[in-house]
Structure formats: C-alpha cells, structure tokens
C-alpha cells in the first residue's frame, strides 16, 4: 500500500518583533519528534513561516498544528498585554 505524504505550510504575518519572539518561544520544543514528522520554522521579514511534513499520520499532523497554533495564540496574548509594560 502506498504511503500518504502530508505537507502543510503556514505563513503568519505577526510583525517583525512578534514573529521573532514567537519563533524563539516555539522552536525549543521541536525536539524528539517522531520519525514520520518534520517541523521547520523560520522568520521571513514580519512573518513566521511553519512547514509541517508527515508520512502516514493525519492525526499526528492535526494534533501538531493544533498545539502549534494554540501556542502561537498564547504567546501573542502574553506579549500583547500592554498592562505589564
């Protein structure tokens, strides 16, 4: 049976400083990933680029995207609260 290859690219325009902060907040956890999963994250100007590749595991991809997007939203909320500055 042939394998299913899944590739998802996300391009999030967050602002220069914000996307750098979010990249730094998320990348340290991209370790010890399963063999069939690959995550690449980097900044391009004011954007955060995320590439997720997986083989034969749609559930892994959906769970990974879910966690990544939730973490981005969390980090964004934490740094956009002006009360603390």
């Amino acid at each position, binding site marked *: 049976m042939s394998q299913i290859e899944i590739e998802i690219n996300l391009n999030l325009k967050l602002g220069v400083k914000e996307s750098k902060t979010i990249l730094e907040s998320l990348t340290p956890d991209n370790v010890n990933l399963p063999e069939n999963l690959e995550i690449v994250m980097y900044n391009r100007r004011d954007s955060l680029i995320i590439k997720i590749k997986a083989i034969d595991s749609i559930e892994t991809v959906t769970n990974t995207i879910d966690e990544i997007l939730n973490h981005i939203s969390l980090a964004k909320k*934490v740094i956009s609260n002006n009360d603390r500055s």
Partner: protein
Amino acid sequence: MKCLGIESTAHTFSCSIVSNEENNKILSEARSIYKPPEGSGIHPRDASRNHMNNAEKILRIVFEQANVSIKDIDIVAYSAGPGLGPCLRVGAVVARAIASFYNKPIVPINHAVGHVELGIMLTGANNPLVLLVSGGHTMILIFSNKRWRIFGETLDITIGQLFDQFGRSIGLSSPCGNMIEKFAKLSDKYIQMPIIIKGNDVSFSGLLTRAKSIVSKNSILKNETKQEKINEVCFSLQETAFAMLTETVERGMSFTGKKEVLIVGGVSANQRLLEMLEKATERQNGRLYKCPYNYAGDNGAQIAWTGIMDYISTKRVITVENTFVRQGWRINTVDINWRN
C-alpha cells in the same frame, strides 16, 4: 531582585512574583487548577488547554497583586520538569515569550527542587531531611555534595497516585486526597492492608489493589452501609500508607542523625500524616517543619524563589532558544549551587 515564576507541570497553572529584597517576600501568587471529570484522571492535553485558557488571566492577576510592571521584573523562571509534556510546554512558551519580547534572563527550574527550596525558605529549616509527597513525587531527600540525594522513594506509584487512583475507583475526581481524608475521619475501624517497605523505599501498588478489591467486594451494599465501608477503607489506606512513610522518615533520621524534618508537596496538607510525623520526629528528639498550607501544593512561588537562588548563585545565562522541558527530570541530577 524580582522573579516571575511560572508553574505548569500537571493540574496547576500558577504564576508568582517573588523578591529577595526585604527578607524574601512572595509579592503575589495566583493559580488555576484543572479538574478532570468525576471518576477520570488528568488528561495531559485537556489540562494543557486549561492552562492555555487561563495563563493570560493568571499573569494579569499576579502583576496587579504585586503592583509591579514588567520593567520591575529581573528574571523569568519556569518549571522545566518533571511533569506532563503538553502542560510543561505551556509554561515554557509563556516564559519564553515574556523573556524574549521584554529581553529578560530566563531560568529553567526543576519542579521538585522548587518544592524543597520554597519549603526551606518559608519554614526556616536549616539542613533538613525532606519528605516530598505529592501526585508526582514520593521521596525522602537529604542534601549532600551539591545535590538533593534520594534516600528513599516509591518503587511504583506515588502517594498522590495511590489516593487519586483509589478515589477515582469510588467515583471521586482528582485530586482525591481531601475527600479521602474527610472520609477517613469518619471511621476508626482498621482493615488489614499490606505494608511494603524495601530498605528505605516503599511500594503502594499492593495497597491500592487491596483497597479497590475491598470496595468492589462490597459494591452490592446499600448506600449508607457502602459509604461506611468506604470510610473504613479510606481510614485504613491512610493509616497504612502514612505508617510506611513515617517508618522510612524515622529510619532516615536515625541513619543520618538529622534532627530536622521538612514536609513539602500537596499531600503535606493531610492532617493525619502531619500528626504521625510529629510523633515520629519527637521520638527522634527532632522537629517537624511543615510547609504552609497555601504553598504545600504546586505554585509559581516555588519556581520564582528557586529561580532567584539559581540565577544569583550561577549567573548562568541561557538563551531562549536553548531552554528546554524534560518530562522525566530527576531531582538528584540537578546541581544546587547556592547550598553548602
């Protein structure tokens, strides 16, 4: 120096601002505790969602309570393990975002070290034998040669897991320790239970099996009689498990010659355990130091305080990119540079 501490190892998401100025002060502390449905255990992803949904609110509360702004914060510390992966990652993301955006030093802290060090700070104990009892830990610790060494520990489940797993089997929701203590107070009838102590280590899984089997054999009883039986089992479970812990603590005191015992962790809120340890330490001409009730369970202050101690003693600067979470981070692998 002021430190923002972030705790998120399991049920609890907590933040705290602690200062080492003016006699070490906890300026603020707030927490959100995930409650699983009745009869269910903690689901790491559900708990992490609770943490994500409450993180911003908890942060806002601690800054307001302490009446400080981010400019007043010198360092950010977070619990890097041991704990549940999805939960640990929430705390780490919050800490990294603040450290990166506001350009603050970041300090990863071992959660168990945090329990011990905050307990010492709050009680004034000097060089104690430590009993760490919670959902994640059951260990007896002594400080030697720059590390907290494990003198004895559980060989299988922790005391908190014993109570939670038994509690869930009778329909309670985790954490179940409070309800088990409440039921235990309603009985004084002891049912024989297995006591397993090997050297300085303990084992609770046989005790759990025995407690569950007694309740299941009596499941046909009518409501009132059934509750009476549950009370008897809770009483017997507590008496047996706490006798095992007290025995090993007393052995530890006798072996090391230590006269101070410090109890920390969520289960240290149990009055019966404290009563038994008081008697044991008295027998050894020692003194029991109890972590204050509010700080017995998981809290951000344990992380903030240990963050200050670690940062001052090592001046170690970790870049945000090099921070980590370690689900199985053992306390006896952490260098404690601030203690002789």
